[in-house]
């Protein structure tokens, strides 16, 4: 049996369903992210694990023991909050020592452990500082050390990096992952930032409107999204609605038959011949070339280049094909090869296409 088991968790507030039939099994030492837009129920789920909210029904089991109704201070879960929540009346050192003193550890143990942890988060020399004297990033490191000090059975992080600036956010998220791996600590991480979730998790739970949309490794979530919402929420994706003409060939007619695209053969019967589906292609899977020069890939179409947006190492091209916008990412070093408002050839392989049955062309879910 898994280390942490969440079984049929439900929670509603005054008629509004916050979490609906949530099921998840977490292995010991695993790093799980709960990812979704605000109001999707991810924080409520985390708070139920922490014991700050009581589920309306369902069970939470930790290491074989039912903790559904245990009070928060009996659960042994370290929590890191978005607002850091350091005790303003105590130094960083005393903040980290708090939980150890609560559990009545001898002072030699407290001293040793607090120094170790401050060292671990890179704040060995800042133990004397108060929260008000530290930057947000430093405060969150102290909060992490404080949560780790009690050797928690599960580490819970509630959007810990949302209040920090971009550079600190990236460096601290790598640090969290490094420490988590080093200590082998089971971790549940709540975030609305898909890049964050993909970059540090063993598995990601994508949620929307109180319901789990998909559970999978970052790669599964990104490459094989199971729902339309996951495909559009995680990263950018191009959508081509069409009708399946031949499931064995993987032939799909889009744009009222003006555009034939090939997808991998559909053998699981997810869509029948003649059924509606949407083809989804990531911008980085699309190759951009001069008209009539690329014949290697199964799918090809000509589109007008509308805008060029520099994103850093990649540059995003926005193209227009019969009124539909298509995004394609190219290497930034190649950006001068193309001229605005000129037609270019787009091509992508059939393996780059994932299909969703019967979904309208819209981003209305976001």
């Amino acid at each position, binding site marked *: 049996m898994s280390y942490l088991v969440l079984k049929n968790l439900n929670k509603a507030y005054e008629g509004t369903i916050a979490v609906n039939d949530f099921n998840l099994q977490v292995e010991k030492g695993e790093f799980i992210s709960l990812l979704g837009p605000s109001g999707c129920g991810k924080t409520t789920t985390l708070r139920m694990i*922490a*014991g*700050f909210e009581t589920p309306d029904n369902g069970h939470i089991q930790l290491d074989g023991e039912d903790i559904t109704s245990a*009070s*928060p*201070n*009996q*659960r*042994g*879960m*370290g*929590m890191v*909050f978005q*607002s850091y*929540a*350091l*005790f*303003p*009346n*105590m*130094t960083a*050192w*005393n903040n980290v*020592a*708090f*939980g150890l003193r*609560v*559990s009545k550890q001898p002072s030699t143990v407290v001293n040793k452990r607090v120094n170790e942890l401050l060292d671990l988060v890179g704040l060995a020399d800042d133990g004397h500082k*108060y929260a*008000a*004297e530290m930057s947000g990033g430093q405060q969150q490191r102290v*909060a992490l050390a*404080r*949560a780790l*000090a*009690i050797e928690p059975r599960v580490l*819970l992080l509630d959007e810990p990096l949302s209040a920090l600036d971009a550079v600190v956010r990236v460096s601290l998220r790598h640090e969290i992952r490094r420490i988590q791996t080093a200590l082998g600590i089971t971790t549940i991480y709540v975030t609305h930032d898909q890049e964050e979730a993909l970059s540090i998790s063993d598995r990601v739970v994508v949620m929307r409107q109180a319901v789990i949309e998909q559970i999978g490794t970052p790669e599964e979530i990104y490459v094989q999204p199971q729902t339309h919402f996951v495909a559009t929420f995680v990263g950018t994706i191009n959508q081509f609605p069409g009708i399946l003409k031949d499931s064995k060939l993987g032939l799909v007619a889009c744009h009222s038959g003006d555009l034939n695209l090939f997808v991998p053969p559909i053998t699981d019967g997810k869509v029948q011949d003649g059924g509606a589906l949407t083809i989804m292609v990531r911008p980085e899977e699309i190759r951009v070339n001069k008209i009539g020069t690329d014949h290697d890939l199964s799918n090809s179409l000509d589109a007008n280049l509308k805008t060029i947006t520099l994103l850093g190492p990649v540059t995003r091209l926005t193209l227009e094909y019969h009124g539909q916008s298509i995004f394609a990412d190219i290497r930034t070093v190649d950006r001068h090869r193309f001229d605005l408002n000129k037609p270019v050839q787009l091509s992508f392989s059939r393996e780059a296409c994932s299909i969703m049955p019967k979904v309208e062309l819209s981003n209305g879910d976001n």
Partner: protein
Amino acid sequence: MATMKKKGPLPGLFIGGFLFYMLLPIVATYAFSIATRWDRTILPEGLTLDWYKVAFMDRWFLIVFKNSLVLSFSTVIASILIIVPTAYWVHLRVPRARPILDLISTLPFAIPGVVLSLGLIRLYAQPPLMLARTPAMLVAAYVIFTMPFMYRPVVNSLKAVNIKVLTEAAQSLGSSWLRTLRQVILPNIMPGIISGGLLVFATIFGEFTIATFLVGARYKTFPMQLVYYTRRDGRIASAYSVISFTIAWVSSLIILWVAAWGAKRTSGSGHSIKDKDLQINIAGDQK
């Protein structure tokens, strides 16, 4: 400041007039308390500290001073014990009850002391309480009477720090309710408690109406003695007033200082060594 100067002498006149109006009675009381005689001339005829001597030598002085101190301290402690945990709990767990508590806490302002006293006498004189005309009852009445002074600063402090998250952080570290309240919440709302305590203290130390109605001469307080002297010798009464003022002023200074310290602490930077020492002392949690 620069804009005030451009507007001419009018603002200065208003401020000057206001200060004159506020300070004149106080200055006059001071002057009267050290005047040999001041009823036949424009300025006092001479200066003396005799009236303070009379005030301090009076066999009642120590008794009424002690009685008023006991009443003030008891009220402060009782109101801290009743109001702080209530405000914390309501703030954390029953936020919907907050407006009700806000309303109740302002009621004492709306009820005149005399009405409150008479109502309380009727209530407390009946069995099983039978507390009428005892200092304990007076303290009970004072807690109600001064509730706004304690409740407001405490609630403001609770709002200034994120009580909910701090409580949850402490709980997740295994801390019990009592420990969380003692080691995390109280130190962080201490500026509010100290301000409230001093306001209550200063108010009760100078309170006359309710004390006279509820216990009267059975438990003589400092203001009662002051009123007694106003009927006999205004100069001794003035000396009493000055002593009373001084206590109120010292309290106010401490409030201002505590408020400045609290503001500094929540605003972030700018800690002096002194601040830190103070924080550690109050937290009682140094390494």
